[in-house]
């Protein structure tokens, strides 16, 4: 049960992979997400040319830099969800062919080597070897002839298998080269045209679509936006599926894992009492530890208040550290206040109560004397606590090779509490 719960945590890097979205597009100028806009256009009616009807069309626009698909002459779409197409790289086919070709060559070499029937027929790669010995390599001229190939049993058997399975021969058209007359020349207008820096793509904009590298702003084309999607991830120990693959990064379950409530102790007001301005008041607050670790909390005064919020009371914080026990799912169902742990000896002037992962404690505060009855009283303080973050999961996923307790990082939280209104005298 414990593990099943812990499984839900995972190092962030394992969670996500990048996926091209089919519905959402990015601005080619500034990479913000484009939004779909609708516009009404009046067109002549098909049935009766004398009448005109209004028709809704949709286009994409960037809210940030005002770039629109209309600006580059992309036709509007009639339906909101119409497919916008990305421009394909015309060289993609050639690259595929290259990859197939080399894969074929490599396989062929392995296979031929395994057969070792004709040592005369040497392939593309081994010709290079000969040359290498002639021109470049260290002085070991005939070694490869004297000692024919010795391959491992595994590789040779693999190769033999492949030979039997007869892989298809792949041919590749030799690459085209161009001479001085075919190579791209500078256009004549380059000497006469004025340079308008705003109309030429910056290097960032070019590299944003690496294989196209558009140079003129007028040639911009939107790019499919990338988004993070969850990948399936299994627990190394119990083989549970920790994360199911999912294509929607806005899924609630997914977000819950990362919500601060799961990582940062919660401060609540335990009990409200009458507050008197100008004199000492005892405030009771409670702390809840949502994590899987016992945490130690120490209090610090908040010295740098920002402008938006101000406290109007001086606060006297507990000087000693408070230990809040870890969240234990089992404890929820057990009525005894402590779950098997030795009873903690708490200072009753500080600690009000202790129940599983919750603790109540006192604070002293003096609201400013100039507060009138009915005014809100704000106190502020900071507290420091350890945070184990993903470490516990790292440990879990790694298995035994990280047996030691993960090192915590220390976080400091700033808290403003509205403890109530000043009581009537």
């Amino acid at each position, binding site marked *: 049960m414990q593990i099943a719960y812990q499984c839900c945590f995972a190092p962030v*890097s394992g969670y996500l992979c990048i996926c091209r979205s089919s519905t959402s597009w990015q601005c080619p100028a500034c990479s913000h997400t484009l939004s779909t806009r609708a516009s009404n256009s009046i067109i002549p009616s098909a049935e009766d040319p004398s009448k005109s009807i209004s028709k809704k069309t949709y286009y994409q626009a960037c809210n940030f830099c005002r770039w629109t698909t209309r600006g580059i002459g992309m036709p509007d779409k009639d339906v909101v969800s119409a497919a916008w197409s990305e421009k394909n790289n015309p*060289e993609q086919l050639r690259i595929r062919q290259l990859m197939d070709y080399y894969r074929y060559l490599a396989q062929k070499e392995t296979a031929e080597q395994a057969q070792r029937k004709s040592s005369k027929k040497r392939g593309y790669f081994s010709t290079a070897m000969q040359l290498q010995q002639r021109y470049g390599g260290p002085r070991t001229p005939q070694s490869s002839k004297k*000692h024919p190939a010795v391959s491992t049993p595994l590789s040779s058997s693999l190769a033999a298998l492949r030979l039997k399975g007869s892989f298809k021969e792949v041919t590749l058209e030799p*690459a085209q080269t161009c001479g001085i007359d075919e190579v791209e*020349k500078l256009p004549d207008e380059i000497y006469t045209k004025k340079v308008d*820096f705003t109309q030429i793509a910056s290097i960032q904009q070019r590299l944003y679509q690496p294989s196209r590298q558009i140079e003129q702003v007028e040639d911009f084309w939107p790019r499919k936006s990338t988004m993070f999607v969850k990948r399936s991830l299994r627990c190394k120990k119990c083989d549970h599926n920790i994360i199911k693959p999912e294509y929607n990064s806005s899924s609630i379950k997914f977000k819950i894992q990362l919500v601060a409530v799961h990582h940062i102790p919660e401060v609540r007001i335990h009990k409200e009492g009458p507050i008197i301005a100008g004199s000492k008041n005892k405030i009771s607050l409670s702390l809840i530890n949502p994590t899987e670790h016992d945490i130690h909390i120490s209090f610090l005064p908040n010295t740098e208040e920002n402008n938006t919020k101000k406290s109007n009371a001086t606060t006297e914080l507990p000087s000693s550290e408070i230990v809040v026990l870890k969240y234990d799912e089992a404890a929820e169902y057990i009525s005894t206040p402590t779950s098997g742990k030795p009873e903690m000896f708490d200072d009753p002037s500080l600690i009000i109560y202790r129940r599983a992962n919750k603790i109540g404690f006192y604070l002293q505060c003096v609201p400013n004397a100039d507060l009138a009855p009915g005014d809100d009283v704000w106190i502020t303080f900071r507290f420091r606590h350890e945070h184990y973050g993903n470490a516990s999961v790292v440990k879990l996923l790694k298995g035994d090779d990280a047996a030691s307790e993960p090192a915590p990082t220390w976080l400091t939280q700033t808290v403003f509490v509205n403890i109530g209104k000043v009581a009537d005298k």
Partner: protein
Amino acid sequence: MSYKKLGMVFGGGNPIVLDIGETYTKLGFAGEPEPRAVIPTAIQKVGGPLTYILKSDRSCISQHLHCATLKQSISKFLEKVFFKILQINPKHQRVLLCESLLNPTKIREVIAEVLFHQFEVAALVFAPHHLLACFTVAMGTGLVVDCAYNETIVLPVIEGTPILWAWQSAPLGSSGIQDEIMKEISEKGKIQVRDEAAKSVTSRLSERVLEDIKVKACFVTQYERAKLIHDGKLAEWRKVCRKRVGSYFFIFSNFCNHAINYFYNTNLIMLRLLYVMMSARFTQKNVGDSTSEQEITKPSPALSDMIYPIDGVTRLMIPGSVREEAAEVLFEQDNDGTSISTMVLDSLLQCPVVSRKELAQNLLVIGGTSLLPGFRHRLLFELKEFAESEEKYRSKLSQCEFRVHNPPVPANLVSWLGASIFASLESFQHRLVTKEYFNQHNRKLPDWCGLPFPDKTPEASSHTTPASFKGGSHLGSSKNK
């Protein structure tokens, strides 16, 4: 131990392919036709400036000396690469890194250490740009010209084997072009804030602005125009020199005057006469020179000046001549007569005679700097011109026809694509350096051009790898034992 088997242990994912350049890093996965992203090789604190981690010039924080800083920034950068952009846990993954022939050993070792010990990658390979690039055009023999940020490296490859003794390198690249842009702007440019009077530019513009100007406005001009530019520069330089000579003479004559006055009193008239004659001759010659000076012909049409908006209120007036003159640093021959074109020709001269024709017909131009408009045209033009006209090359190269390849991706992505192809091959497995190897060998990496990977099945590897790596050759001897 079978490395094929090991390959399965490494995890099924495609190898990660990184081309960490001095200015831009291309990153993605093996077998894909284009990198997932191209980002500046830099780290940035929130709100802080972009700090390039490998640039060895002014914006570099490490200067390659402080290993700790270098390590820190590399690890920060790789963190961004893996976790933010590729969204992958590099643990147990295989990584292929493209590197320059001139990549300092220290940098590759720091990168390897960070990858192995911090990111716990299973295995990695460093492979040189030039050989990887050959995959993209399926050529076994060719001459690869890599024009990068700081330098240009030329390397002939014959049947998949790099001809190392024929390589050429020179510090010709984008950084030189950007320096030239800055020089021209500080000489002739003006900066204007709002409606205030335009002032001359005194402090160095940011590299980002200079790069932007280079990318948007500069090009490699035609040979004829370039010649005029060079003649003009030469004439100007002569004028400056002459002025200087003149002023030295003035000082000299002043000194003589004092001396003469002294001697005059002692009635040494002869000496005085001599001086008068001498100074008359000098003055005459000076006057004659300045009148006979030839007109400097400027290329026409002249390029019109530009206004570059730095921000909402600041504008930069840039002389139009910058556009074509800045990139001339790549082609104007320096004191040793080195330009990109002569590097190619010199490299050819050092190759075996039988291969020269084929090499010349298979030029492969890669690297971001070569994306400048007009670059390849100018290169081909000059190669032809020099091979026919210059004494040094005519006898040996005049028969060569020069042709360039058209790789299927822009020049700045060529080595990445080559790496993507290479890493998708089965034979890639044999080249991997494992963490164990790295630890056992005192955290040193085998050099791609010399050391074997001893643990591997030697023959298998030497025959199935595209022999790009001379490493294979040594394997025979290790097997002899």
